[in-house]
């Protein structure tokens, strides 16, 4: 299964970025093999508005089947919900640790956005 992580670095020894829409990159990790692709997100990170929406679109287009994130706002949540992609909530830990937690079923699904929108 392909998991998207907002990441502070470029490999599994980096941390989960505490932001979603304005994370500078995503790691799209294959949970079976541990191999990953890097999805740069600078353009969306610097958007004047709608960063979460566009980041969600990019993550979905990259083939992610699940998102692991510290937070998710209402608009990005709506995009993931429409696409049928679950969001698992996690603290900003090492990605390799989070991958283990995911494999062991140790991450809980978010039922709704946990942040207010930033529109305007």
């Amino acid at each position: 299964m392909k998991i998207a992580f907002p990441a502070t670095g470029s490999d599994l020894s980096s941390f989960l970025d505490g932001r979603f829409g304005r994370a500078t990159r995503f790691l799209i990790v294959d949970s079976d093999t541990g191999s990953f692709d890097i999805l740069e997100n600078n353009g969306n990170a610097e958007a004047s508005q709608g960063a979460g929406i566009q980041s969600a679109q990019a993550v979905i287009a990259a083939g992610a089947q699940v998102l692991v994130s510290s937070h998710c706002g209402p608009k990005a949540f709506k995009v993931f919900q429409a696409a049928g992609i679950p969001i698992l909530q996690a603290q900003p830990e090492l990605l390799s640790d989070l991958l283990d937690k995911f494999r062991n079923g140790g991450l809980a699904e978010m039922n709704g956005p946990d942040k207010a929108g930033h529109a305007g």
Partner: protein
Amino acid sequence: MKIAVASGKGGTGKTTFSVALALANRDRARLVDCDVEEPNAHLFLRGGESTTTQVWASVPEVDASLCDSCGKCTSFCRYNALAVAGTAGLLVFPELCHDCGGCILVCPNKALSERKVLRGTIESRVIDGTLELVTGRLEVGSPSAPTVIRAAIENPSALQRRVTIFDAPPGTACSFASCVHQADHCVLVTDPTPFGLHDLDLAIEAIQGMAKPFSVVINRSNGDDDLASRHCRRRGIPVLMRIPERREIAECYSKGGSLLDADPSMGERLRALLDDLHFHVSGGPIL
């Protein structure tokens, strides 16, 4: 002639000055309150029968049977108001849309069409038969102040007046720019505090970017040697007028009165000031 009364900082006295300028020149000027997020000139200019019109904008609506999720609209939209949600197709976020219509133009499948949404209202009143006040009001939750500001400025005049005064929104962002952009000259109102001067400089930088002539009015001034006067002198910025810091002006304001109520002698000075501005802008008197 169009004069924008603006400031970087809020609360410097834009409305105080523009209301007084309009009252003193009511036979030749009208006032448009362009601070559409929080218009307040009407608190000082009361009465008159009001005429209200609505301001509509077009946001995209998707026909899912025609959309193939190609993403051309989402990559075109500067405001990120559309997104492809994988196989679920295109989602529209009208609250982020700035009404440019670009997505509809770039869609190769004609899957997007216009849907009208209310962005605000424009109210026009003529006070005592002589002074026209136009007030723009943005709908709560609407992102698009410039749309309503433009509509307020373009609202047909009820009276024949040679001068229009815009009471501009504070700040230096889109709302400010969309108002100042349409003026021939910008009067920046500042207070003589470090905060006022800091934001005055930001506003000047924005106005110079638009190559717009400007001048300064100092409110709550302590005279020739206050912080703002020295600041303007050092930078060669013309100071049109100083409104003195006086308790009776503040008391009058707190009761909904104008500068002219507090100090009737301001009337002549504000007429001369408008004459000077008109000479400066068009090289001749207001006919």
